């Protein structure tokens, strides 16, 4: 659905009197297959929006090629536009317009007849819980409603591929969770392929089949959320001991799971990261039991995408978010 090779974009800016070329995106390869939900994860300024604007024909790449929805980005931009939907972070409707009019006018620009546009628009309003809002002015809608209206605008021509730029930024937690349901519903109900950018880890985790991690204009990782977490950080096993004198015994058992590693000791807590806690735990527990180590509690922490990002880039996502 998307195949990009070496897609790059340089901006000229002035630093003092000097003209400097800034590499916003430095040659990314992206492959998205039909029916996938792919997340583009990275801190603000990493190049997410720039990449998205290139893929949606809004910005001309400085170099590189891409096929989007089956059409060459440079040679057939009109056909690309015909087949994709784009929901930008800045919105898509005038505050003083009427929601329904905006939907219909938008559809007309895609060459859809007015009657079909209205029917399709009303269907989308139903699906996106916007029923009764056809005559409403977008400025009177809540943040979540207005974002759903933007999604309806992006879907009115039934695109095969939908781009969502930071779909839940600025929404409250309930509105975000609600929007996630609608976004994953796009695939199950409409069979759309979805490419979204986010700087929220939980969002990428909850929605995406696959994540591309971008930092400083370069893709640093691409995998499923689980594989990314497994590959980089490993699971954290924490043993809370009932008897403090058994600490070194417990620590040596835990350390023996991974060659050449050492467990951290903190009071009555012994902890260490292992590649996969699920497969190690049964044997570890039996061994501890045989050695007579009594545990007050045991805790397993799966790595978060923040851990992944920290390991890969040396920075935390949250610092920038």
């Amino acid at each position, binding site marked *: 659905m998307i195949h990009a090779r070496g897609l790059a974009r340089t901006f000229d800016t002035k630093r003092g009197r000097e003209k400097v070329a800034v590499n916003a995106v430095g040659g990314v390869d992206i492959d998205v297959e039909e029916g996938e939900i792919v997340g583009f994860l990275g801190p603000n300024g990493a190049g997410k929006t720039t990449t998205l604007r290139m893929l949606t*024909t809004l*910005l001309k790449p400085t170099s590189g090629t891409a096929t989007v929805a089956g059409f060459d980005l440079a040679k057939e931009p009109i056909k690309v536009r015909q087949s994709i939907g*784009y929901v*930008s972070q800045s919105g898509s*409707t005038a505050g*003083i*317009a009427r929601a329904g009019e905006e939907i219909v006018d938008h559809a007309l620009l*895609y*060459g859809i007849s007015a009657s079909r546009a209205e029917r399709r628009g009303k269907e989308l309003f139903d699906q996106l819980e916007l029923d009764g809002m056809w005559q409403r002015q977008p400025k009177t809608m809540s943040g979540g409603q207005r974002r759903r209206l933007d999604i309806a605008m992006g879907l009115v021509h039934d695109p095969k591929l939908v781009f969502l730029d930071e779909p839940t930024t600025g929404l409250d937690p309930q509105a975000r969770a609600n929007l996630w349901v609608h976004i994953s519903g796009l695939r199950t109900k409409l069979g759309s392929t979805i490419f979204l950018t986010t700087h929220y880890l939980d969002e990428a985790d909850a929605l995406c089949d696959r994540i591309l991690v971008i930092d400083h204009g370069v893709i640093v990782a691409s995998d499923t959320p689980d594989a990314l977490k497994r590959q980089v950080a490993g699971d954290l096993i924490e043993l809370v001991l009932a008897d403090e004198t058994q600490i070194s015994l417990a620590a040596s058992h835990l350390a023996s799971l991974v060659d050449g590693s050492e467990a951290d000791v903190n009071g009555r807590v012994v902890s260490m990261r292992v590649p996969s806690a699920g497969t190690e735990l049964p044997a570890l527990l039996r061994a501890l039991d045989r050695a007579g180590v009594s545990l007050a509690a045991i805790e397993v922490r799966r790595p978060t995408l923040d851990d992944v990002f920290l390991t890969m880039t040396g920075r935390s996502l949250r610092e920038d978010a």
Partner: protein
Amino acid sequence: MTFAFQTWVIFRRQMRLALRNPAWVIIGLAQPVLYLCLFGPLLKPLAAQIGTTNAYTFFVPGLLIQLGLFGALFAGFGLVSEWREGVIEAERVTPASRTALLLGRILRDISLLFAQGVILVALGFAFGMRGSIGGMLLGLILTMLLGGACSAASNALALTLKSEDALAPILNSIALPVLLLAGILLPISVATGAPQWLVTLSDFMPIKYLVDALRELFNGNIATITTMWGVLWTLVLFGLGLWFGTRTFRKDNA
């Protein structure tokens, strides 16, 4: 057909929004009307000195040009706020022609200008202006073309700058010299006592030829050299504005 239809869709939407919040249309008209009411009476006793018999027949054509210039020149502000609401991007990601996106907006400004111009001329009549109706109609058409050129340039500038703060000083620094050098308020002519250097300077101001042409037209002098120069300059400005506007709107990274 598709292009015309897309232009129509954009135009209709823009008109709907403009009429839903007509404050700007009224504010745009307020300036020339204030000039007509508060400055016009001062010209009346000076009619002979500025080389005319009816001060209003002299003054209204200038105000019409002022309306065309300023109303349309500030259209770019609307575009910046549309940009901020994401509307421009949303339209640019559709297969619609990007020229149609501009043309629909220019047509909105020209239509509003027509309505404002008719009101202004009617008010002129109320104040005692007399002249050739046919000439006035032609004058109104020239004004609308000038407005179209200004609207195209202003929208293109706004799309490039995307900021009111950058747009305002540029437009103001264009508007004031134009207002003064085009002879909108008082004639710039050696015959009425203007110094030669100022007359020479104003000869480089294309809008002056439009103002002069409109004054001729209002007096019913349609086939004159002055009128011809006005028409010529209008067409040149219109062509330049449209060229600059479409070029900017079609650029891939604007």
